[in-house]
């Protein structure tokens, strides 16, 4: 690899001249620095990954790097223990139940709105859009207390009340709506920028052909915007899946509805930092985001480059 890359550049100076040597040398130094930095970057994650396959006695008394001198001690015990002792299965399910609608809602509703912002005329359009740009930066903390008060005191939407109704999915509705509201400014911003860039002749000719608004939206705008939609979906899904704060505020410790992140944070408190079971629990929580990320990285990067990012 290194040799191939080193000779990639056309040699600008004669072989074995001092200049040729120094160029050669600086190429090698570059490769060493690049690979060294990347390796160092991986150390924290690799350390925890190795630890997750070590028995408790090993983790407590020696560093993860010593494990390689005694590879026979590797075990799946931490994984089977943590899956048996904690309800990670339930919270894994909950994470899906939260993340799927909390992605579908802001992306779909955001696409409706972005369509109106880019191709319809209505009073206050530009000002409303500017307000959305401002709202991108507003800390969510500002909204928690009134929403929580409204949920609990006006609507009586507590987890136990919602569960008592027996309607499937209902206990997560408060969380879906909140995530939808929080995700919308970014969703509209990203999609409107994309929709606006679509050629206007397309819309004119569709109108001449007698296509209605719905047809234009579903047959023209959405299919043409698949790249933008894909990156937004990945973004919002990962954001909700990895979210701790919003879930903590609206569902708190209710095990039956809490997502993986909350469960994992609770385990940190109950098991104590540095417990061997946390190592496997942490990797368990990473499975889905890593699969999503690795398979759809292209779209994820494109979404990041498409503009700002919500926080």
């Amino acid at each position, binding site marked *: *690899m290194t040799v191939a890359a080193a000779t990639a550049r056309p040699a600008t100076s004669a072989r074995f001249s001092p200049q040729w040597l120094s160029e050669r040398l600086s190429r090698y130094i570059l490769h060493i620095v690049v690979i060294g930095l990347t390796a160092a970057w991986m150390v924290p994650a690799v350390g925890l990954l190795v630890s997750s396959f070590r028995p408790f006695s090993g983790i407590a008394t020696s560093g993860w790097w010593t494990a390689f001198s005694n590879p026979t001690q590797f075990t799946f015990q931490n994984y089977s223990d943590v899956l048996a002792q904690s309800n990670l299965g339930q919270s894994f399910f909950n994470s899906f139940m939260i993340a799927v609608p909390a992605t579908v809602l802001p992306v779909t509703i955001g696409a409706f709105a972005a369509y*109106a912002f880019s191709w319809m005329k209505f009073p206050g359009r530009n000002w409303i859009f500017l307000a959305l740009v401002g709202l991108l930066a507003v800390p969510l903390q500002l909204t*928690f207390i009134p929403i929580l008060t409204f949920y609990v005191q006006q609507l009586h939407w507590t987890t136990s009340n919602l569960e008592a109704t027996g309607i499937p999915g209902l206990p997560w509705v408060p969380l879906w709506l909140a995530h939808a509201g929080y995700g919308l400014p970014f969703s509209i911003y990203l999609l409107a920028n994309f929709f606006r860039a679509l050629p206007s002749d397309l819309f004119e000719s569709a109108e001449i052909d007698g296509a209605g608004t719905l047809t234009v939206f579903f047959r023209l705008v959405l299919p043409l915007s698949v790249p933008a939609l894909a990156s937004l979906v990945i973004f919002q899904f990962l954001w909700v899946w990895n979210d701790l704060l919003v879930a903590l505020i609206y569902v708190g410790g209710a095990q039956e509805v809490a997502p993986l992140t909350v469960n994992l944070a609770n385990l940190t408190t109950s098991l104590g930092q540095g417990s061997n079971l946390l190592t496997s629990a942490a990797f368990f*929580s990473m499975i889905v985001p890593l699969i999503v990320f690795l398979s759809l990285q292209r779209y994820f990067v494109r979404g990041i480059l498409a503009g700002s990012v919500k926080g």
Partner: protein
Amino acid sequence: MDFSVLLSDIPTLLVVILGVPAVLAAYIVGGEYLVRLLPDKNRPQVRPWLWVGPALFLVIAFLFLPSILTIKQSFENNAGDWVGFRNYATQFADFPTGGAWVAIRNNVIFWLLFYTLFTLILGLVLAVLFDRVRYESIVKSLIFLPMAISSVALGLIWDFMYQYQPPGEPQTGTLNALVTTFLHHDPVTWLQDQWPTPTFNLLNNLALIGAATWGITGFAMVILSAALKGIPGELLEAARVDGAGELTVFRRVIFPLMMPTIVVVGTTLVIFALKAFDVVYVMTSGGYNTDVLAFRMYKELYSAGNFGSASAVAIILLFAVVPVLIFNVRQFRAVEARR
């Protein structure tokens, strides 16, 4: 583990995966049907509101109105009585260690400065270095990977990095193993050590910031790398032909041309820095003077049940973000004007 939950909840699964999109589709198709019943001239007036309506409702209900209510609540006690600036007075009491001062200092000085700077510098260095090797996409993916995982998992990863065992014992934390083996220094309690002084505890704050930086550098690197690739190659070649060394090329050509992108990434990072929560929550719970505003607000709300104070902390956070917010809106208008 009880995976049977996944099977027993099939109705829930169906409701969630089919129900939500069905409701949304029914709304827009039904709405359009109703709009078409209107006389021709009224349709263009009504139709836009059908399409922006749900979004406007949710944004107003979940972002705009609550923010206004929080401002009001920050001047009230739990019973809803007006108390003037008392909630703020509590937060600003006893400078520099009382009230919210430690959290303000950590957010507005330590996090804002170091998190933003470390991430930008690392992101820039990695982008420039990686640009010169053929296996760029592989190393970039690896640096970027922490972006995909939750901050809770990130906190756990770094808990293990920072582990401490008493001097003389074998160290289990990677960093302390390095410190004791290569620097012959006593192991450090990274998350508790308030070096240099408890009123200016840089060390444990930097430990938290370092963990967060690890998670976000990939984000900065990807954007900066895209900007770097946007610089025309002839420009760099011309500078090199004129005899400029690589460092000069970077300082005089690459860096100035990337400045607009660096500013955009920087403002995003500033917002992240001011909103820092998860890492602090998982790793220190704000102990040893590592509190931040977002965590303090959470504590006031859940541990103390103090709505007025929690609102006041949220408003302080808003004030810290407002300059960035104004900057963003102005940037946006400038870009719009150029369209």
